């Protein structure tokens, strides 16, 4: 099945269009709801981190989705940025008391726990993050 790819403006308001794009793809591929939820969460967490850490960058962020067998492959590409390997973020202290807990780092931690594979590449000032998530088809 061919991949789909789209550019999104680097702003929180883009999330509605990002989710619409994912919704159309998973509907076409009959992806189960659990995997769809994971893909949405992973893309949101990575996309919002790209906004947060490269806010002054005016380039759009590219999102590509494709299926390979029973695996959804998601790729986010961010051009003309400093290197920022989200796969190497420190693990938040989830056992801390409420008063000591901090929200930072939770999104990437959740993403890494929920997807089956997450790889980071940095080439020619471009960050490329590739995720894989196993899924079941809702119907055949």
């Amino acid at each position, binding site marked *: 099945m061919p991949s789909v790819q789209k550019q999104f403006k680097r702003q929180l308001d883009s*999330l509605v269009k990002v989710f619409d794009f994912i919704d159309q793809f998973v509907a076409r591929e009959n992806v189960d709801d*659990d995997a769809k939820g994971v893909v949405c969460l992973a893309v*949101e967490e990575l996309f*919002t981190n790209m906004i947060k850490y490269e806010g002054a960058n005016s380039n759009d962020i590219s999102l590509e989705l494709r299926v390979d067998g029973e695996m959804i492959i998601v790729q986010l590409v961010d051009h003309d940025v400093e290197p920022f390997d989200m796969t190497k973020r420190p693990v938040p202290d989830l*056992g801390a008391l*409420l*008063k000591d807990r901090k929200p930072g780092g*939770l999104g990437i931690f*959740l993403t890494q*726990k929920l997807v089956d594979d997450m790889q980071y590449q940095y080439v020619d000032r471009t960050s490329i993050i590739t995720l894989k998530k196993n899924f079941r088809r809702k119907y055949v």
Partner: protein
Amino acid sequence: MFDIKLSDSGEVVLSGRFDAAQVEKAKAILDRLTVTTSVDFKDLNYVSSAGLGVLMATQKRLGDKGQKLILKNVTGHIRDIFRIARFDLIFEID
């Protein structure tokens, strides 16, 4: 489409998709809470770390006054996220 309402009985009701773009809308309601309050997740179908952060901040603020949020009807994919984030340690989940 995300929505958050305060019911006549004082319960917070969430619905739709609670993503990073909805933080201010959620805070407008949650920041008004001053006593122990139930939050109903029955019609919520998605939450990201941004939503979790707002809930955590509210729980901290209420906890300083001896109050808390009680989360209800947390199921499916959202329950998995709560378990991985160890929110069971900091929230009462009915």
